[in-house]
C-alpha cells in the first residue's frame, strides 16, 4: 500500500456515467448520447445535502485531487484545496469533479467516435457553451441523486460555470464560489484566444481538424497556443522572479536555439502540453470562453442577468492576475450587490498571476475555508469519519 499525506484524499478511481437522453445544445445541434467521466471524494451523506461540484478550467479535467496510482508524480490539479481538513474538507463534503463535454480526458469529445459515422468526431464535434456544460453537469447530478449542491465551485472558466449554475438552476445551488473569473471576456482575452486558434489551425498537420485520420496532430500549433496561453497565466513579476534574463549557458550564442531560461521554460510547457492535449478540444474550449456573456440577453446589464440567483456568492480575485484581473471580479461583485444578492468579494495579494487560483496561499486558504466552514455549519453537516 502506498503512503499518502494525511490531508490527501489518497487513491482515487475515475468513473464513467453514460447518458442516452439526447442533449440539445445552444448551437442548435443535439448530442444523441454521451459519456461523462468523473471522480468523487468524501462520502455523500444520507440527506444528500453535502455535495460540492468542482468545475474545471480551460485545460482541466476530472482529476482534481488525490492520486490515480502509486506511480503518479503529482496529485490532482486542485489538491491544494480539496482533502481532509482542507478548504473543501472531504471529511464534511462529498466532492464531484468531472471532465466537461468536449474534453479529451474521457468524456465525450472530438476524440470520441461519432456513432452516426463510425469515425472520430474530430472537427465535427458540436460547439459547446458554458450553459451546455451546466445542463450536462445537472444530469450527472441527477444520476448521483444530488438534488441541490451545497456549493458549486470553480476557478477561471470553472468560475463561469459556477456563475451559470446559479442562474440556470438557482434552486439547485446553495452557494457559489467564483474564483479568478470574469462575467465575460474582454476584446484582449478574445484576441489571445484567436492567436491560439490560428496557431493550431494554420499548422500544416491540422488537416482542417481531421489530423487523426492522417495519423498526425498539429503539435507545433498546439505548442504555440499553449505558450501564448501560458504567458497570460503568469504575471510579469512572477516571470521576472523565476527567470529574469537568465541564460541557459554562460554566453550568448547568437542563434535561434534556446538562449534565455524563459524560452526553455515556455518550450517545455508547450511541448508537454502538445503531446497530452487534443487540439480540437482546445479550440472548442477557447470558443466556449469567448461566447460566455450572461448579460448579453439582458441588454448588457449584468445586474439583471444575475437576478434569478438565490445563493450567497464568494468572489475571489488575485492582485497580479492580468488575464482576468480584479476589476473583472469586482464587476461581477458590483452586479450582484446591485441586484441585492448576498456576496462577499476578496482580492488576494499574490504574485502568481492567473495561476494563483491553483496554488496554496495562506490568505486564500483562510477565506476559502471560512466560507466553506460557514456552508457546512448552515447545512448542519457533521464530520464524516
Amino acid at each position, binding site marked *: 500500500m502506498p503512503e499518502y499525506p494525511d490531508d490527501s484524499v489518497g487513491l482515487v478511481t475515475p468513473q464513467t456515467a453514460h447518458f442516452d437522453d439526447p442533449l440539445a445544445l445552444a448551437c442548435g445541434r443535439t448530442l444523441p448520447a454521451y459519456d461523462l467521466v468523473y471522480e468523487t471524494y468524501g462520502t455523500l451523506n444520507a440527506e444528500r445535502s453535502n455535495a460540492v461540484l468542482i468545475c474545471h478550467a480551460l485545460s482541466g479535467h476530472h482529476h482534481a485531487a488525490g492520486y490515480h496510482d502509486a506511480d503518479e508524480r503529482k496529485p490532482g490539479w486542485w489538491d491544494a484545496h480539496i482533502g481532509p481538513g482542507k478548504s473543501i474538507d472531504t471529511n464534511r463534503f462529498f466532492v464531484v469533479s468531472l471532465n466537461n463535454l468536449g474534453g479529451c480526458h474521457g468524456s465525450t469529445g472530438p476524440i470520441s467516435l461519432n456513432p452516426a459515422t463510425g469515425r472520430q468526431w474530430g472537427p465535427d464535434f458540436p460547439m459547446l457553451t458554458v450553459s451546455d456544460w451546466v445542463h450536462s453537469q445537472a444530469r450527472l447530478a441527477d444520476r448521483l441523486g444530488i438534488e441541490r449542491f451545497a456549493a458549486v465551485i470553480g476557478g477561471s472558466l470553472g468560475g463561469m460555470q459556477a456563475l451559470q449554475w446559479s442562474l440556470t438552476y438557482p434552486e439547485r445551488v446553495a452557494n457559489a464560489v467564483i474564483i479568478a473569473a470574469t462575467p465575460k471576456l474582454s476584446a484582449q482575452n478574445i484576441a489571445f484566444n484567436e492567436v491560439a486558434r490560428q496557431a493550431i489551425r494554420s499548422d500544416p498537420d491540422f488537416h482542417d481538424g481531421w489530423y487523426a485520420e492522417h495519423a498526425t496532430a498539429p503539435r507545433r500549433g498546439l505548442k504555440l497556443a499553449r505558450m501564448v496561453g501560458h504567458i497570460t497565466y503568469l504575471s510579469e513579476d512572477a516571470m521576472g522572479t523565476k527567470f529574469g534574463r537568465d541564460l541557459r549557458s554562460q554566453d550568448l550564442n547568437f542563434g535561434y536555439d534556446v538562449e534565455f531560461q524563459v524560452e526553455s521554460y515556455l518550450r517545455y510547457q508547450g511541448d508537454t502540453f502538445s503531446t497530452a492535449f487534443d487540439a480540437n478540444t482546445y479550440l472548442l474550449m477557447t470558443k466556449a470562453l469567448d461566447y460566455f456573456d450572461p448579460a448579453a440577453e439582458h441588454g448588457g446589464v449584468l445586474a439583471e442577468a444575475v437576478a434569478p440567483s438565490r445563493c450567497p456568492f464568494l468572489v475571489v480575485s488575485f492582485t497580479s492576475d492580468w488575464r482576468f484581473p480584479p476589476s473583472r471580479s469586482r464587476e461581477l461583485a*458590483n452586479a450582484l*450587490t446591485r441586484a441585492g444578492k448576498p*456576496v*462577499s*468579494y476578496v482580492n488576494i495579494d499574490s504574485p502568481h498571476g492567473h495561476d494563483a487560483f491553483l496554488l496554496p496561499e495562506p*490568505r486564500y486558504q483562510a*477565506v476559502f475555508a*471560512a*466560507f466553506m466552514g*460557514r456552508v457546512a455549519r448552515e447545512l448542519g453537516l457533521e464530520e464524516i469519519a
Partner: protein
Amino acid sequence: MMRADLELIHRWVPEGAHILDLACGDGILLEALARDKGVSGYGLEIDPEGITACIAKGVSVLEQNLDEGLVNFEDDTYDLVVMTQALQALRRPDRMLDEMLRVARECIITFPNFAYWRHRVHLGIRGYMPVSKSLPHAWYDTPNIHLSTFNDFEHLCREKGLRITDRAVGIGDHEGHWATRLWPNLFGEIAIFRVERRNRR
C-alpha cells in the same frame, strides 16, 4: 458583547433596513442586525482578518478601500450607511460624508472625540499627543490622520446643510454621567451622530 457605540447603533437601525457598514471590522454589527432585525446589506473592509471573520459569520463583505469612495454604489440605493471609528482615518472625511449621503438619505457616524477631557489633559497640560482607549496609537504610527471634535463635526454638518437627527456620546468610565449629557465635547470619548440630508436629490 458589542462595543457600546455598536449597541446604540443597533437600537437606531430600523427593522428590515438595507444598509452599508463602512469599515465593518469583523462584521459583528451586521450579523446582529441581520439576526435581530432582518437587516440586509454589505460590509466594506480592507483588513484581511476582519474580512475572513465576516465570511466565517456569513456576513456579506466586500474588500474595498474607502478612500476610493463609493463609486460602485448607485444613488439612493440603501436606507442607511453606517461608519464606525473610521472617519478619522480617511483621506477626505468630508467627501466620504457626501458619498454616504448620496447612496442613502441617512447615515450614522462614530469617531473618537479629540476634545475629550483626557485628551485635553494629554495635550494641553502634559504637552503630548493624546493616547487613550479610543486613540490607542502613537503619533507616528496612527492611522488616524483627521482627528476632530464633537464641535468640529457639528460645524461640518452645518456647513453642508445636513440635519443632525440624533447624537450621543460613548464614554469609557463615566457612563450615564450627567456631565456627558451637558458637555459632550468635554466628557464624551466617542462621538455618535445620526445625520440626514435635508432634500431629496
